[in-house]
């Protein structure tokens, strides 16, 4: 028995080594390639819909009668927030798990495939009613607006698919830990664990919400508790965007330092940032309800506190990133207080794209802090400012990091190499995307402060003078949107070129090592059970009081409405 274990341990070790030298196994590569293909098809489709919206909102383009603005908006949100981000994150982390844990277990690979098809099936179910104009309810689908039940059933399958992938990741990590007692989970798999913990626990509230909506949408139950649904939605909705952010952060800590020829930031602090983001994330969503009725001011204030706390690990990240850049540049002979920046590889898209993404997070994060506090939130709530904010965070900080990753991740999984031409294309793409986002999101922030609302098709509000004065700013949405569309086309071209046509060869999975003199990381960082308990306690502190109040002192519920 013992020899068997030893032997299987040995083959595992050989496999791990082989994986590192030869690259990913064909089966694991196929999984990641499929996930990434879906992600980039989603950005192509979602991008086209986004451009149509930008042009319409600026009053420059009339949508055809069979496709209205709100259908386009619902599909755009779902394609980019749910499909692009989720498929990229899962594809990337599964490649990371495979690389750092010595290959995926066959069982886990199967689970990821089942998850893949469940999500695709769920998405098709959700899109059919959107196309038929039976589900123009937006990404937030607030009751008592009621879409076709098929839409919600589609969402259930998407959530179940995500859970499959989360459990797969847990099983693979647990099996590695059993085989490597006393060792720390490799850092990228540590990030993956955090992301999948959040994906699982963060989607529990929306699962509960959807299970109460379905019987109501079918008409089996007459009314629904609107505030409970709304609160459950945001416990999930904001966690989701922070999950993509944590995915981008993993690349900043682990991948980017290697790309520039440096070393990783302090391993202990990195793990603390991951743990902090996992524990504090779910409660952050409540700030979407700062100006809701029916929630007392002390409860709202407690949530301001909880939402703002997420800023702390983000500020630590800001420090760590710039410290790594400076340290690396100085080692390469960079001089002066700020002159060292010349030593960074600006012409390398694998660095340039994530770097600009990080830089964008400075204003994006500041905007996030503004929205989290009472009075500032009231000024910008539901205005175009918010749309500008999440195009800066999601569209720039997260998606641009994903773009930067794709220039080595896709050659890595397709056993090809990044050519100088595609690198150049990537640099130009990065610049176009950056300009597009600055113009579009800048205009959105500004016009939002003037009072222009979000999620509204072109309207002058009966030629109201105030509304007409917003038009010049909205014009910039069209310009920015057009640049972004060019960026999408270039990106999608680069992705599929690298996947199928680039020259064959081996590409490295870049994972930075820690500094040589670094103290060993303490064991307590590995206690995921404890972190999950901490997270549940915090979620309880945040949500028990308001939810119990909404349920115990519930007003008569609302029947379903179809208002479009």
């Amino acid at each position, binding site marked *: 028995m013992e020899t068997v274990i030893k032997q299987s341990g040995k083959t595992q070790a050989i496999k791990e080594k082989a994986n590192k030298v030869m690259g990913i196994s064909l089966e694991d590569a196929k999984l990641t390639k499929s996930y990434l293909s879906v992600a980039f098809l989603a950005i192509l489709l979602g991008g086209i819909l986004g451009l149509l919206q930008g042009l319409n909102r600026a009053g420059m383009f009339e949508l055809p009668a069979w496709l209205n603005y*709100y259908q386009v908006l619902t599909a755009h949100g779902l394609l980019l927030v749910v499909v692009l981000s989720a498929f990229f994150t899962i594809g990337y982390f599964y490649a990371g798990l495979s690389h750092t844990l010595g290959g995926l277990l066959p069982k886990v690979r199967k689970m990821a495939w089942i998850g893949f098809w469940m999500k695709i099936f769920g998405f098709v179910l959700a899109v059919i009613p959107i196309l038929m104009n039976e589900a123009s309810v937006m990404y937030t689908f607030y009751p*008592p607006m009621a879409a076709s039940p098929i839409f919600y059933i589609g969402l259930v399958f998407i959530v179940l698919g995500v859970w499959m992938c989360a459990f797969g990741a847990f099983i693979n990590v647990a099996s590695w830990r059993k085989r490597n007692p006393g060792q720390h989970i490799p850092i990228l798999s540590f990030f993956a664990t955090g992301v999948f913990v959040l994906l699982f626990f963060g989607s529990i509230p929306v699962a509960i919400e959807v299970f109460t909506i379905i019987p109501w949408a079918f008409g089996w139950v007459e009314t629904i508790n609107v505030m409970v649904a709304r609160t459950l939605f945001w416990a999930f909705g904001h966690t989701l965007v922070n999950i993509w952010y944590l995915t981008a952060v993993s690349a900043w800590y682990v991948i980017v330092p290697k790309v520039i020829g440096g070393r990783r930031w302090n391993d202990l602090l990195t793990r603390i940032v991951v743990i902090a983001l996992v524990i504090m994330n779910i409660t952050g969503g409540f700030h979407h309800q700062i100006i809701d*009725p029916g929630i007392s001011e002390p409860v709202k204030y407690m949530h301001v506190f909880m939402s703002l706390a997420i800023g702390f690990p983000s500020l630590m990240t800001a420090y760590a990133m710039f410290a790594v850049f400076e340290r690396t540049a100085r080692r390469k002979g960079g001089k002066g207080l700020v002159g060292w920046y010349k030593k960074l590889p600006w012409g390398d898209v694998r660095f340039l794209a994530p770097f600009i993404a990080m830089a964008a997070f400075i204003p994006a994060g500041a905007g996030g802090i503004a929205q989290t506090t009472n009075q500032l939130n009231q000024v910008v709530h539901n205005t175009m400012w918010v749309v500008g904010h999440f195009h800066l965070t999601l569209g720039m900080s997260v998606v641009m990091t994903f773009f930067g990753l794709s220039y080595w991740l896709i050659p890595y999984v397709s056993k090809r190499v990044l050519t100088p031409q595609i690198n150049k294309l990537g640099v130009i793409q990065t610049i176009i995307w950056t300009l597009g986002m600055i113009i579009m999101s800048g205009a959105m922030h500004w016009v939002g402060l003037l009072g222009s*609302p979000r*999620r509204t*098709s072109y309207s002058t509000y009966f030629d109201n003078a105030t509304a007409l004065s917003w038009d010049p700013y909205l014009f910039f949405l069209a310009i920015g949107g057009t640049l972004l569309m060019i960026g999408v086309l270039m990106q999608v071209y680069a992705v599929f070129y690298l996947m199928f046509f680039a020259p064959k060869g081996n590409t490295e999975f870049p994972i930075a090592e820690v500094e040589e003199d670094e103290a060993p990381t303490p064991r307590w960082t590995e206690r995921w059970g404890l972190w999950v308990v901490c997270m549940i306690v915090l979620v309880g502190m945040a949500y028990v009081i308001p939810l119990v109040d909404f349920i115990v002192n519930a*007003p008569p519920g609302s029947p379903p409405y179809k208002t479009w």
Partner: protein
Amino acid sequence: MMHRSEKVWLILSFGMIIGFMLIAGYQAFAFEMGPPSYGERIDPQKVDETPPFDKPGIKKIGENEYEVVMTLQVFSFTTSEIEVPAGSTVHFTLTSKDVVHGFQVAETNLNAMVVPGYVQKITQKFDKPGEYLVLCNEYCGAGHQMMSTTITVK
């Protein structure tokens, strides 16, 4: 292990976040500048029969002080086209008769969610004369972009 600059940065970050928290709390509780949070419940299907929403309208309740009772429904505000003299303080009492709406007045800080089943209250002083655009800023259906009215300050 930790560099001095890192410690300084951590302290600054911590101070900034705590500062934000304290300012938000101080404004909310000491200056009563908290966000609109009124808690009264109402049957969303019986709004028309429930006072004060059975008689929406504007009422003068004091020197330069007005009360506006308003219902929001797809895709309109009832009481619309309100007129008040400059320098008036207006107390809005709002509820929805159907889906979730937003109540926003451009060029002011008036912004509140109006959720069916709940009464929402928010107050604003209008100093500058002009025509203020009132609009719904929460997507509420096909005519959402038409849902607006005005407040005229003379």
